[in-house]
């Protein structure tokens, strides 16, 4: 599906989907809308009638409500990409990376045979990495450097810096460049050492 938002001039512009891509108010009944109407996309001319909801418990979650626009709506940009990558790399390291670290530590603690079993999965006879070793190793380091760079970017954003559209985009691109350069440098150093 083509992105609906072609040019993003600011946060508000991004939150206003073009009518051609969205069904508009005629397909959404007021019953489907949250009484508070926080995110009533496409229904600005059709405010929900609050009296309809007086008898509903306030905490009830209406699953028939329209969802807020998701991945297929937004125009892809570096900031959106690194935001998604941050979560993906974090989850990847938290599962695969953490399990591997613990396996490594437990194998060393258990003795030479256990460590040999661990090592054999990722290396060939000569001690060099095999294909699994390279895929997992390079994958995890790339994840780490991307998560690290974007994490530092987030710390700057937490103090209110770097929210201008241009610099925000530049910094998002810089995290990807950092991750690629550091991953290549790490493995080159490990290889020639």
């Amino acid at each position, binding site marked *: 599906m083509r992105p609906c938002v072609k040019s993003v001039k600011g946060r508000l512009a991004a939150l206003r989907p073009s009518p051609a891509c969205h069904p508009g108010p005629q397909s959404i009944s007021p019953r489907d809308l949250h009484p508070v109407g926080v995110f009533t996309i496409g229904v600005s001319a059709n405010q929900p009638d609050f009296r309809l909801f*007086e*008898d509903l418990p*306030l905490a009830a*979650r209406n699953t028939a409500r329209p969802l807020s626009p998701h991945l297929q709506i937004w125009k892809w940009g570096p900031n959106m990409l690194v935001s998604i990558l941050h*979560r993906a790399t*974090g*989850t990847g*390291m*938290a599962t695969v990376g*953490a*399990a591997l*670290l*613990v396996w490594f*530590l*437990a194998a*060393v*603690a*258990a*003795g*030479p045979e256990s*460590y*040999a079993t661990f*090592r054999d999965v990722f290396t060939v006879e000569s*001690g060099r990495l095999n294909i699994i070793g390279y895929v997992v190793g390079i994958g995890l380091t790339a994840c*780490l450097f991307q998560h*690290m760079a974007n*994490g*530092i970017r*987030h*710390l700057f954003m*937490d103090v209110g810096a770097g929210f201008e559209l241009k610099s925000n985009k530049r910094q998002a691109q810089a995290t990807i460049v950092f991750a690629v350069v550091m991953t290549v440098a*790490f493995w080159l*150093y*490990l290889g020639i*050492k």
Partner: protein
Amino acid sequence: MRSGTAIGRVRGLGSAKSGTHHWLNQRLTAGSNFLLVVWLLISILRQPSFDYASVHLWLANPWAAIPMAMLVASVFYHMRLGLQVVIEDYEQDQNRVALLVVMNLFVFTIAAIAIFSILKIAFGGAA
């Protein structure tokens, strides 16, 4: 129409008043993670060999065992906070509660195995 006043119906709703702790700890552990992971990466690059004897010798040294234990504590706590947000964003109702419990079990179990292994290497003598 329900009975009660408007203020009575909204009281107790709104923010849970406990998110700041989560948010701040995620940032603080991000900082300690950075320092400890840089230590780990440099240590890996400086390893003379990855055979059993050299890896065991490295981790048996307090200068490696202590930062490694700190890394496990800091990284796994950060991990717990991060996975919690991911689960809360994508799962609802009973699934959310079940997954949060499973996630906590996972993190605490692997953290316990990691810390025990580090202590065993450090205090176990030459294996």
